[in-house]
């Protein structure tokens, strides 16, 4: 609905713009869940996890599965929309869905742990993270087109990492042309995040349980 309320792009037909916004918004909800939904996992859910035979890593794994489940429900909506208004978009790009979901899932769990670790050490950051996520929504090409970049939009499209992930899902569903640059950038960003989270996890997994 929001795609219809907002001024559609002048360079993109209405149906395409609808798909563009829908795919972006669906992935954004997943990203938002990974960031804003991870500020209190250890603080509030570790005891529940321990009672149910889940380790610290298992707890974050379960959170990821929950997010992926919600994401998959939303993807059904994307698929339905594609069938109704944009079947012509579906093509060989769909093969990239598996690497896409792998990259997104790994990045999601890494970001979730890093965010949670920061809020364990600095609890006041939780509110900042939530506000920052809301800001990032407007600073990401969800309702506006990355292609029509000029001025601030150009800056945001280039330097906001979220824009690359949004580009990736749109390329998978054929809404944007495939771009090696987008995939290369997401791979670099995800690798850095995953490596950082991996090191942080092994250095903090013991100590973090004793902070109350």
């Amino acid at each position, binding site marked *: 609905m929001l795609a219809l309320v907002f001024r559609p792009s002048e360079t993109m037909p209405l149906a395409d713009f609808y798909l563009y916004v829908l795919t972006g918004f669906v992935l954004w909800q997943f990203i938002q869940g990974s960031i804003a939904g991870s500020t209190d996992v250890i603080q509030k859910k*570790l*005891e*529940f996890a*321990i*009672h*149910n*035979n*889940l*380790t610290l890593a298992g707890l974050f794994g379960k959170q990821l599965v929950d997010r992926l489940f919600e994401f998959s429900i939303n993807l059904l909506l994307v698929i339905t929309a594609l069938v109704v208004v944009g079947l012509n978009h579906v093509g060989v790009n769909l093969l990239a869905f598996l690497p896409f979901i792998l990259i997104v899932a790994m990045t999601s769990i890494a970001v979730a742990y890093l965010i949670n670790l920061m809020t364990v050490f600095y*609890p006041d950051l939780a509110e900042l993270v939530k506000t920052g996520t809301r800001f990032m929504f407007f600073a990401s090409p969800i309702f506006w087109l990355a292609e029509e970049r000029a001025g601030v939009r150009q800056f945001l499209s280039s330097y906001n990492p979220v824009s690359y992930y949004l580009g990736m899902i749109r390329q998978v569903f054929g809404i944007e042309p495939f771009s090696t640059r987008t995939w290369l950038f997401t791979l670099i960003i995800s690798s850095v995040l995953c490596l950082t989270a991996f090191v942080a996890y092994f250095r903090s*997994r*013991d*100590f973090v*349980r*004793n*902070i*109350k």
Partner: protein
Amino acid sequence: MRASIEIKDASVTYYLRKSGKSDKVNKKGSVGAPIIVGHRYLEVQALKNVSLSLKNGNRVGLVGINGSGKSTLLKLCAGALAIQSGSISVKGRVSPQFALGAGIKPELSGRRNAELKCLYMGIPQSKVTDYVDEVATFSELGGYFELPVRSYSAGMRSRLVMSLLRLVRGDILIMDEWISTTDPSMNKTVSKLQADLIESSSIVIMASHSQRVLSDWTETLIWLDQGEIKAMGPVAEVYKDYHQWMKKRA
């Protein structure tokens, strides 16, 4: 499976973020470990140089005043806390039962909680319905089994939690003192349930203030004070010493 817990010279410290003035936290109370004011955190050394070796068949009780380290030792064995020094090795599947209601989701119904518990406990999908129906019958919650747990009274909640214990599968059973605080109308069934649970576990560690509970379910008693093991031995002997110490203290 041969279950075991080996703890050598383990020390556990809690860290709490400093907030406001922390000059009054050094004030000595009658319970709990001393609070150390660190650079960024308040540090509570809940366990100090504790050594413990438990093997198949051991049934151990923990006794001590509030803040003596009982729950910390239980949480350490369950993996909910980490050691700062020493070593710990736990072999076998641990089933922690720390508090009444821990491990259940208040926003979900009794049925959904039972289904979730089944999945977490690794019960095959094909048997989940049977197990859940068993829990529903055992809890005698009737229609309340379909309502969110947050709408339950304390008694109803304890009925659900007790019934869920039927789903617990573990080599090492860790129970905090809530276990004896159930609805009297369930005592008989709960006692049977506890007996089954304890019987099927290779190692049992249980914290309680009740001599009856400790004598019924454990053979060895560990008396903790200020995070250290003050005495360890047969339940009757250690409890007697503890009781006398408590009297003198009062």
